[in-house]
Structures are given as C-alpha cells and as structure tokens.
C-alpha cells in the first residue's frame, strides 16, 4: 500500500505541474451544474445515491481522497502509516483545518464522524473496523478500533487486513463533520463541513447553491459559486445546455451518435469509461435456473453486440467479464461465455429441455426506463430462438428491488456502479455467500471455492497475487453463468469548451457526480 501511495504521489505531482504554454487557472465565475433529481439528503451519514454524494463531496472532506487515477492521496490526513500486520492504520491530520463555522478540526471529530456514520445508511463502510459491528448493533458505546491518540493523530484498527480500506476512508460516507452542527436536525438540509465549498441555499426540486470557502486548507477554489440545477427531464437539461444555461449535461438517450455528428456540438462531446457493469442475474435457487446448464444456455444465447451497437449507439463498452476495465486489478483474460446458439441448444438438451420443450415461460424483471425496455425486447427475441419464452415484467425501482430482494425474480437486470475502485466491491459484494440477499448477492449464489478465493484476496495486500485470485473467482462465476455481463458503463456528457479542470476519471458519473469541483475553472 505504501509503495502504491508513493507512486500515486509522483503521478499526482506530474499531473499537477502545468505544461508549458498552458494558461494558469483563472479565478471567479459560477459553474452551472445539473442533477436529474433532488438529492435526498446532504448528510454524509444518510446518502446512498450519486446525486447526494455529488454535493457532499464539495462541502465535506474525508481523511483521504481518490485522485484522477483512483489512488488514495492525502486530504484531511497529511500522511498515514500502515502497521506490518496490515491492520493498524495511523493517520496524521493536517493542523489548522477549519470547519465552515470557523472551528478547528481535531482528531476527536474523526472518531465522532465515523461512529455517527456507522449507524447511518452505509454501515458497511465501517464494519471492518474492530468493534464496529457491536457498535452498529447497539451493544457497544463506541467503536473501540478508532482511537484518538492526540489532537492530530487517529489510529484505526481492523479485525483483519482489508486491502481496499484506504478507499473506504476516502469514501464520502467517511466525511468528517462537526458534532455541534451534525447534532442539529437541520444538518441534512444545511450541512457544515471543511470542504472547498460552503453551503449557501437549497430550494428543493429547484437548485442547490454552494460558494467558495476562503479558508479551505488547500487554499480557495477557483470558482466563486456552483449552482446545481435540478432538472428531471433529460430533454430539458439538453435544451438548457443548448441555450447556454448549463456548463455541462448528460447526452439524452438515443442522441449519442447525433450529437457527435452535429457540427455545433461534436467538439463538446465527452465519453469516458466509468466503474459500472450492466448485467443479467438469475435467482439460482429457483428452477430451472438451479441447473447451471440452463443458465449457461441463456448466456450463450445472448448476443450483447446488438445491445451495445444498435440500442446504445456504441457509446458504452462491450463487456467481457464482470469487472470494468477501469478498475485496478481488471483481468483482461476473463471472458464471458461466447454467443453460440448451437452450444446453447446442446446445453438445453443436456439439461432435459430439447428445443426448450418442457421449459416453463421465464419472467424477466427490469426497472422502468426506455433503455431497459428495449434491452428486454432484444433479449426476448434472442431467447425465443432457443425456444425459451421470456415474459417481461417492468416495475418501478422501489417495486423492482423489493421483488428481487424477496427472491421473486428468476431472471432480472442489475446494474452495478462501484462505491470504490476495487475488485472486492464487485465480486465479494455481489457473489460471496455471506452477502446472499439484500446485501448484494441477489442471485443467492453460493460457491465455496469462490468464497475461499474472495476471502483470501480481500485480506491480501494489493498486487498481482491478489488480482490473480479475483480473476480466478471471476472466471468461475462467469463460467457458472451466475451473472451475464452485457456492457460496461460510460459517462456521456456535453461539456462547454471553456470549462477547464473537470475530471473525467472513472469515478465521475455525468451529470450527477463530477468530482472534485475545486479543480474546475472557467476560461472566459
């Protein structure tokens, strides 16, 4: 981890040095950003969506942050050390960091913030810390594994080594909050942090406004203000962008090729890979999908190229395995089951359903969206070739996830966007047997070999031996057809040419989550 950090620091320094001839950042101006929905909360404890995190990241800091190469770099912590047992992390805080209310941040605020957030909606961020489980359950008064050494030093002890732990520390759930503000009921509507931007106002369903915090520990941000407009209809966001009222927006569904052909817009199109995969899952506890041969037959019968090239206009990446290529540890050698109808038919016959005979109609569940509907229709047509009748069941998100959780969906779509860039966040969360059900493994897939590989990898230091174990587990899962990958996500955005410094890293998901905005400036 230490070596990785040093490398990251060198890379960051190289990136930060402006190239010769490049103009320096110009201060001032308002960035007009956009969301498709109102953030449910601005409290880091309760956020579970990208929109909320998109604002929270500007108002709060965590001990660390991820740079554009997704490496943890110092933020509120000036430095850190990891014990030889890979379980004890010691963070040294920057002195003199101020909250927006003027008070200085201390190590006690870190402990308070972690304990507060551990009882919030993302407890899994903290559950690796010693004593956290008891605290979350309410049987302990504090998380014993978080210790305030002095005003500027915090120690965090883990039950066992966990390689992506620094990613968790850099996650917005682990933002540091001031207790005197966070205890007020209005905190979720009027947040106070240490971030580069300070909360100004929030008119629900209309806009959230933040302004530069002059006393930020990194020095003031370039922008005076950021206005996050909340515009639910994608066509309206597009029109606002065309009218010059937004600095960036997403590309409306079905317009990816046409904006690239439009002479006025093609220079403003930005498409970059992000940390997400769209796939199909089975409930492996429900017949006929208890039989891996039937699952494999479905996997061989699906041709994702039509979905990628025709429906999604080639603006996403076709998937090979489960991990998107942007994740460190991505294994290019892991391959999905190839599109092969003959093989699919043979497998069905082997499973006792020649030509699909004797196979009951399969219900395919998906949540409401135009793209999901069209994908469902393609799947229906492709499986019909095999003699499998697909019945489409379209539900809104709340109903969809309820049915999937309850195990009521034999075949369903699932998109997954990584919380942090590590194979563990895909493979362990989605396929380890201990997460079967609501915690992420909605397939209820149980494979002792996979469990063992994942457990080993999760506690190893990052590096090729760790990646090798994830790759093995991933290939087993793919071969077992517990998951059928269709494509990897990409952010598709229009960005005005005068907007500089907007990070297009794999964790930036347009338009909700463009981070961090303190680096952005307007060249006009």
């Amino acid at each position: 981890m230490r070596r990785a950090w040093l490398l990251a620091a060198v890379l960051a320094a190289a990136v930060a040095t402006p190239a010769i001839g490049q103009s320096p950042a110009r201060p001032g101006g308002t960035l007009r950003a956009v969301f498709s929905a109102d953030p449910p909360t601005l409290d880091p404890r309760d956020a579970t969506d990208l929109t909320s995190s998109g604002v929270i990241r500007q108002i709060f800091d965590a001990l660390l942050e991820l740079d554009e190469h997704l490496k943890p770099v110092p933020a509120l912590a000036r430095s850190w050390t990891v014990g030889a047992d890979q379980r004890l992390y010691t963070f040294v805080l920057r002195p003199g960091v101020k909250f927006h209310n003027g008070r200085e941040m201390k190590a006690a605020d870190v402990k308070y913030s972690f304990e507060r957030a551990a009882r919030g909606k993302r407890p899994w961020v903290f559950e690796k810390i010693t004593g956290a489980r008891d605290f979350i359950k309410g049987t302990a008064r504090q998380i014993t594994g978080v210790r305030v050494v002095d005003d500027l030093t915090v120690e965090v002890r883990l039950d066992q080594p966990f390689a992506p732990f620094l990613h968790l520390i850099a996650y917005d759930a682990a933002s540091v909050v001031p207790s005197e503000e966070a205890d007020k009921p209005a905190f979720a509507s009027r947040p106070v942090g240490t971030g580069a931007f300070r909360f100004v106002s929030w008119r629900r369903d209309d806009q959230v406004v933040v302004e530069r915090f002059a006393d930020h520990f990194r020095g003031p941000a370039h922008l005076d203000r950021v206005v996050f407009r909340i515009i639910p209809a994608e066509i309206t966001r597009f029109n606002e962008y065309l009218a010059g009222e937004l600095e960036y927006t997403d590309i409306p569904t079905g317009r990816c090729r046409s904006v690239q052909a439009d002479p006025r817009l093609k220079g403003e199109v930005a498409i970059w890979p992000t940390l997400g995969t769209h796939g199909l899952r089975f409930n492996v506890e429900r017949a006929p999908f208890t039989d891996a041969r039937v699952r494999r037959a479905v996997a061989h019968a699906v041709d994702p190229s039509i979905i990628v090239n025709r429906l999604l206009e080639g603006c996403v990446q076709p998937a090979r395995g489960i991990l998107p290529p942007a994740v460190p540890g991505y294994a290019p050698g892991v391959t999905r089951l190839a599109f092969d109808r003959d093989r699919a038919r043979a497998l069905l016959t082997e499973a006792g359903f020649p030509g699909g005979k004797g196979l009951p109609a399969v219900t395919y569940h998906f949540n409401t969206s135009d793209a999901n509907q069209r994908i469902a229709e393609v799947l229906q047509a492709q499986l019909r070739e095999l003699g499998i009748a697909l019945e489409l069941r379209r539900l809104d998100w709340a109903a969809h996830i309820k049915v999937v959780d309850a195990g009521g969906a034999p075949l369903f779509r699932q998109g997954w966007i990584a919380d942090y860039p590590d194979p563990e966040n895909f493979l362990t969360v989605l396929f380890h047997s201990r997460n079967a059900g609501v915690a992420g493994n909605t397939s209820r897939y149980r494979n002792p070999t996979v469990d063992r590989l994942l457990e080993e990898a999760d506690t190893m230091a990052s590096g090729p031996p760790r990646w090798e174990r994830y790759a093995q587990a991933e290939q087993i899962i793919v071969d077992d057809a517990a998951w059928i990958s269709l494509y990897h996500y990409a952010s598709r955005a229009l960005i005005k040419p005068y907007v500089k410094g907007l990070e297009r890293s794999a964790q930036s998901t347009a338009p909700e989550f463009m981070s961090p905005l303190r680096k952005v400036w307007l060249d006009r």
Partner: protein
Amino acid sequence: MAALVPVVFGITLLVFTLNALALGDPARAAMGQRADPEVLAQLRREYALDRPLPVQYLTWLGRLARADLGQSFREQRPVLDVILERLPATARLALAATLIAVVAGVGMGALAAARAGTALDHIVMGAAVLGISTPVFWLGMMLALLFAVTLGWLPVSGYGNGSLAHLVLPALTLGALHTGTVARMTRSSLLEVIRQDYVGVARAKGLSERVVLFKHALRNALIPVVTVIGIGLADLLVGAPLTETVFAWPGVGRLLVSAVGQRDVPVVMGAVLLFALVYVLGNLIVDLAYLAIDPRTRRGER
C-alpha cells in the same frame, strides 16, 4: 363544508390502501442497492412499517386530527414543511394557468359565438380542440424549443426565484388544455342565451350588438362556464406533475410523483390530501361565484 370530512376520509383511505397494495418498501428504497439487513430492520421500526396496516392508517389519522402530517421518510423532515415550501410554486402556476384559461377561453368562445358559422368560428374552435387534445409534455417541449432555445426570448425551465419570465411557458402549457374547454363551453352557452327572449328585447331596444352580447348575454352565459372552471381544477391537478417535470418547476405535483416513486407514504398522503382539499374548496368557490353572477340564486330563492 360538512361534506368535506367524508370526502377527505374516503380519499386518504383509498390512497393508503393503494400504497399498501403497490409493491415496494420505503425503507428498502432509501437504502440503495447495498442494504444492511440490520439497518433495514431498524429503519422499518423507525418508520413504523412493522405495525399492521390498519394501525398505520389510524395512527396517521390520529396525527392528522392534531394537524400533524408526520415525517417524510425520504427527507426526514415534517411533511407539512416539505409540502408548504413547494406550495407557492404550484399555486402561482395554477393561478396563472387559470387566468390564461379564463381570459383566453372566454374571449375565444365569445368571438366564435359572435361569428358563429363563419370561417373564424371554425378556426377558433379548431384551436380549442387542439388545445384540449395536445399532450401536455409534448406541448411544453415544443414551446420551450421555439421560445427558449430557438428564439431565446424566455428561459427554458426553472423557477428563477419567482420571475415572471420563468412563469410564462409553464403557465401557457398548463393553461392550454383548460383554455380549450372554457372556450367551447362559452361558445355553446352564449349561443343558447342569445336565442332567449330578453336578448331579443335588448336588440329591439336598439342596443348595439356588442352591448347586447357582452353586457346582457355573456353574464348569464357565464354560469355554466364557471362550473367548467371549477371542474377544470382537476385538469390542472392532472397536468401539474407533467408541466412541472418538463419545466423543472419546483411544485407539489413533481413532489407527489417522486414521493410515489420512493414509496414516501406520508408525503404521498399529505400531497393527495392537499389536492383533495383544493378540489373540494374549488367547487365551494364555484358555488359562491354563482351567487355573485346570478342574483336569483341568492337567499334561497330557487
């Protein structure tokens, strides 16, 4: 006013039952994709979702009796605050749309009646039918494309801190539907009134056609029109969520739509209650308006 209680009771019971029948769990919807079973159970207790449905409904009613609409699951704030801060936006939009509908609708209807059977009549009434049958979402998109994106005269969307310019396009969109209905009713009602004896008398007295039409006939013709305006409140309530969505207008209609999506039951109940009250009170105002327009309805003379 006494009729209000059973109506409100019936509507809230219906909405609560529909919510209970709909799949989906507000606690689960709030957790994102990666839920923690223990926290989920805690949240369900906190939201009182672990209690039997009749108990949940009666608790809600009991709170309502104390003017407490409960807490929003999603926003973790009192439902009353959540609704009240969006109410001014919806009220402005509904009033502006009604104003457009009344002025334009009565004007168009009177014009068509005065020129009944002519080409002008057909054009005006054709426009009215177009207004009724054009989908709100599409009309809003087209107006925004023309007046905001192409011509640049008006803002594309948003509340703009309450500026009049931001109100124009949403009000026109929402008002269009209703304008058509009012215009058609005004025309047919006027044509009926014109055939009555007292209009003939007015004409025989040598009054100009304009005075006959606008001073004598229109006033009586307006009685059914007022009814249509009252009923039209329902159209406004139906159209509000769509108009508010396409114009990013921060109103109660959009709130209701997103609350249904999140299964934020207290907000859904509160917003529906508000809509029901507006509708019932709107009809009450219509009844009172009869008294002002038609002296015969005063003091129970009918």
